[in-house]
């Protein structure tokens, strides 16, 4: 009774079937990345709100921390994206050897990025910046490049190197005098320390969790990416992608996504 117009022509992997599966996988990858964006956006927005509310603390942190190592790190990660593109191009052109080299470079650059982040974390933890809120004081290392304080006769000599830190300070005397090194009496210094602690030190102590959560979450994605790159290398060496390089393309989508997120984080946390 069944009246069927269509009939399945064999159960082999026809070209149309492969193309259909590929487009399925690409759509799924895009949807997955869309949901990843949402998770990152919570941490990014959480940081951005804090950034807007505490410009003085951010100014102090930027003044203290060097941007050079992380810029190099960023450059390496961007280069890895380029290596990724070249690797995909190589396998699409059927050049397995070049593919192995480029994807190998991708994995290596990703691994170096993770190592660089590890070094950065170590340096920050020495400055008393941890995931937990730490009790900071003006004497902490993180304030060294913003303030110079030395005890002299009759009080403290204060040299404010980062003038932005004075914004919004509630003092009974004029902040104009900090334009050049000035000597404060015991009483004036106590007031100064109190004011800076309320305005800047507490906020600087809150930087840790808001910094580590998004960057470590991103770092975790890079680690996963490196592991995936190694798997792509292994499968590629077996000739898995010779006919259908979709797996490489999917990994590429993920890797570029991780890069784009880093550009956002780098701009938001280190630059502005």
């Amino acid at each position, binding site marked *: *009774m069944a009246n069927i*117009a269509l009939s399945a022509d064999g159960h082999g992997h026809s070209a149309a079937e492969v193309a259909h599966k590929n487009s*399925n996988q690409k759509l799924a990858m895009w*949807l997955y990345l*869309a949901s*990843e964006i949402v998770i990152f956006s*919570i941490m990014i927005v959480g940081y951005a709100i804090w950034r807007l509310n505490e410009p003085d603390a951010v100014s102090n942190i930027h003044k203290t921390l060097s941007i050079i190592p992380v810029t190099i790190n960023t450059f390496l990660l961007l280069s890895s994206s380029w290596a990724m593109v070249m690797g995909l191009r190589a396998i699409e052109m059927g050049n397995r050897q070049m593919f192995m080299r480029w994807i190998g470079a991708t994995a290596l650059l990703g691994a170096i990025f993770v190592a660089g982040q590890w070094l950065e974390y170590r340096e920050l933890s020495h400055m008393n910046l941890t995931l937990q809120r730490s009790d900071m004081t003006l004497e902490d290392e993180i304030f060294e490049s913003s303030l110079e304080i030395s005890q002299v006769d009759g009080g403290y000599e204060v040299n404010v190197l980062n003038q932005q830190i004075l914004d919004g300070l509630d003092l009974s005397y004029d902040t104009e005098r900090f334009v050049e090194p000035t000597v404060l009496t015991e009483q004036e210094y106590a007031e100064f320390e109190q004011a800076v602690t309320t305005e800047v030190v507490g906020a600087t102590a809150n930087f840790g969790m808001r910094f580590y*959560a998004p960057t470590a979450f991103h770092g975790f994605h890079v680690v996963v990416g490196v592991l995936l790159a190694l798997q792509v290398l292994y499968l590629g060496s077996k000739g898995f992608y010779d006919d259908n390089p979709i797996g490489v393309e999917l990994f590429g989508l993920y890797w570029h996504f991780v890069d784009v997120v880093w550009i956002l984080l780098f701009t938001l946390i280190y630059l502005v």
Partner: protein
Amino acid sequence: MATISVPIGERQTQSMPHWTEYFRWTVDHKIIGVQYGVTAFVFFLVGGALAMLIRWELLTPALDTMASGTAYNQLFTIHGTIMIFLFVIPMWGAFGNYLIPLQLGAGDMAFPWLNAFAFWLIPPAGILVIMGYFVGQAEAGWTAYPPLSTLFSGDGQTLWAMGAHLLGFSSILGSINFLVTILNMRPEGMSIWKMPLFCWAQMATSTIAVMATPFLAGALTLMLLDRVGGTSFFDATQGGDVLLWQNVFWFYSHPAVYIMILPGMGVLSEVLSVHSRKPIFGYRMIGLSSMAIAIVGFFVWAHHMFTSLQPELRIPFMVTTMIIAVPTGIKIFSWIGTLWGGKIRFTSAMLFSLGFLSMFVIGGISGVMLAAIPFNYQVHDTYFVVSHFHFVLFGGAVFAIYSGLYHWFPKVTGRMLNETLGRIHFVLTYLGFFFTFFPMHMAGMLGMPRRVAVYAPELQTWNVIISIFSFILGISTFVFVGNAIWSVARGRRAGANPWRALTLEWATTSPPPAWNFDEPPIPFEDPYGYGTDAATAYLDAIDRTFGVPEPPRPNITGGNSPEALPSPAGD
């Protein structure tokens, strides 16, 4: 006469897969669908038992059944968590898994392996949530507001967060699979405007799940960091922000209520059309209103926070909340239009759909009442709110789940559910439900706060009424359980298409073979085109082969004979 292009099915039914298949890792979407469904239903029974305990405690105004207020807090926390995360959402996963490939005439989901993986995340998550009882169960309510959930709750709260995390992950993976299947696996000739409305509903649901669930994941990550990592994202005394949780949580959880109701609306669109033998009224509007709800649903979250929000934001959220009632109203009127002048068959599936229609309207109206800020102030966190969300979740989602179970049980098992027991089940559920939750409106307006075990003695009358009917509601569940168990073994053989429906899941045997369709089926031009030439020819051919359907006669019990005619409209 138009050509019949859809196979009319066979009299003989297939046998179900061996029972051990259901306890194993398998990539067959039909087995995974049943795994989802049975797991979710077991959690429904657990969550229901907890609800019975809550009602038992509330029989008297004093603390008696529970050892302490903390124990009571744990009780309703786990009741809510199980019902939402472990029952309703996975239950719609069950329907989606079983039906989407069949309705699209496909052999399986786009990613069978991912499908199995998403399911097997659920049992460990359920165990994590329940295991909290051994280490100090979560007690901050299913909404887990800090600082209750960060500074005060026991280690069970950490397990709770991990469990919810796993469930969210499972939900995201499942939804990606649904979306790809619906968008990319439709057969030739079925455009997006010709696919069954259940698929439309699942498409809207999955869109929400993919875009909203990550918000929960992000918030839970921060909560776990606060609890385990020593951060203070949600601790205002340490530079954190309590409202951050409320905003992010509701940014997930408000869209999540549409995750819980939209598939039910899809079920309703199928059942009402099939059982009133009429084309669905306003196909496009039903499909589009699902998408409209999905989109507007992202802009109403702060109506949960009228008492903690900046005052100037209240009016905008009141307006968006009222706007979202419009697409819902479009659906309701379309369904009434479908019923109008139809040849209505009062099968159990139809009864539960009509129950949804009546009860969900009440829940919708109390929702609009709650959206009005001055009224909200009066009943905020009272039993009025409890009543509202049970009307939409039980009167909506659960009624639709029952309706779907009665409608598709023959497809899944090859046997009909007993209609007599089905009617008893419906009457008990309908009355038990209404008299449990409707008096809660009154109790709420009289000032009964939610989430407390000790209340003012003058409210006891209302609470006793509520509790007694809730016990009837609890008992009614076992009528269904008994019916299902009996019918799997001895129910009447269903045949391929017992309801004489036109969608493709009925164009194969019941239960379908592992490969679903012997030949790729060609869908009807209109999946609800009852009365068109093609549909009439098809349905006539079925009638000629298997005999004319008898009107429903609930008194006839089933038999085990494979020779029995497929029963078109009930037992």
